[in-house]
C-alpha cells in the first residue's frame, strides 16, 4: 500500500475546508445589505410622497392641478371624517392620484383646537402595508382662504390655523 503524501492530502483537505468556510462567511455577511436596500426603497417612497405634496402646494391654478394644497385643505368640511371607501376631499385625492400612480395612500389632517391636537381622516385607500412611510407637509389657513374656498374651518379674521397634511404611502 502506498502511504506517501498523506500529509499533503490532509493539507489539501484542510485548505478546501478553510476556503469553503471563508466563502460562506463572506456570503452570509453580504446578507446585511438586504435591510439597507429595503431602507432605500422607503427613502424613495418618502421622496415621492414629499415631492407630491410640495408640487401640489406650489401648483398654479392654470395647471392640471386646479387647486393648490392650501386651497384643498381650506375647502375641507371639518365636520365629517372619511370612512372607507368614501373620501371627503375629492379635489386633493384626484391631484395626488395623478402624481403618484401605482402608489396607495391615506391622508389625515392634524391641527390644534383649543391647544389640543386633533387628527381627522380625510382620504382612505385601505390598510397601510408594513413598509408604509409617512410624509408631512404644513399649510397655514387664514379666514380669507377658507371663505374663498367655502370650507368649514370657522376661523376668526385675526386667526391662523396651521394644518399638518399627513400622508401615509405604501406599495403593494
Amino acid at each position: 500500500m502506498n502511504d506517501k503524501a498523506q500529509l499533503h492530502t490532509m493539507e489539501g483537505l484542510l485548505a478546501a475546508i478553510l476556503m469553503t468556510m471563508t466563502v460562506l462567511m463572506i456570503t452570509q455577511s453580504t446578507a446585511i445589505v438586504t435591510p439597507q436596500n429595503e431602507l432605500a426603497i422607503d427613502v424613495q417612497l418618502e421622496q415621492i410622497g414629499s415631492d407630491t405634496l410640495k408640487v401640489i402646494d406650489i401648483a398654479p391654478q392654470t395647471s392640471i392641478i386646479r387647486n393648490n394644497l392650501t386651497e384643498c385643505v381650506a375647502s375641507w368640511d371639518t365636520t365629517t371624517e372619511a370612512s372607507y371607501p368614501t373620501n371627503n376631499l375629492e379635489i386633493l385625492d384626484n391631484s395626488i392620484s395623478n402624481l403618484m400612480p401605482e402608489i396607495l395612500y391615506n391622508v389625515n389632517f392634524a391641527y390644534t383646537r383649543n391647544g389640543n391636537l386633533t387628527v381627522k381622516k380625510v382620504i382612505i385607500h385601505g390598510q397601510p402595508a408594513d413598509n408604509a412611510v409617512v410624509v408631512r407637509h404644513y399649510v397655514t389657513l387664514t379666514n380669507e382662504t377658507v371663505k374663498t374656498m367655502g370650507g368649514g374651518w370657522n376661523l376668526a379674521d385675526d386667526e391662523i390655523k396651521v394644518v399638518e397634511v399627513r400622508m401615509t404611502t405604501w406599495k403593494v
Partner: protein
Amino acid sequence: MESLKKDTRGQWIALSGLVLSLILIGLAALANQALIAGYHSSNAVLEFPKENIRELNSHTRDNAEILKSLSFEINNSTNNTVPVIFEQLFDNYSTQMETLYAAHGETVDISLVSINSNNGTYNNNSDIDVIFVNLTYNDGSTHYVSEPEVIRVTK
C-alpha cells in the same frame, strides 16, 4: 501513520499553507467589517430627518409672507401696531407648530427675534422687509439650530 510522524519533509509547504489560510481569514474579516461600516454610515445618512428640518424651515419662510399681509389687514381694524400684531400671530404660529411636531416625537422652537423695516416705518404692506427668527429642531438623535434664520419677506 507511524511513518508520517517521522517524516519531516515538506515543512515549507505546510508553513506556506498556514500563512495562506491566515491571510484568507484576515481578508474575510476585513471584508466583513467594511460591509458593516458601509451599512451603518449609509443608514445614518438615510435616517437623517432632512425633510422634517427642510419643512420646518420652508414653512416658516412661507408663513412669514402670510403673517405679514394678515398683520396689515388686522391693523386696519385695531389700534395695535403692525409689529405687535405680527409678533402675536407669530407666537400663535410657533405654538401650533410645537404641538404638531411634538405629536411625532420631535421638539421645535421657533422664536421671533426682530422685525426689520428698511425705512423704519410700518405704514404700508411693503414695510416689513426682513425678520430674524431662531429655529431649533431636535428628534433625540439630530439637533439642528439656526440662530438667527434671516427671512426676507418680499411680498
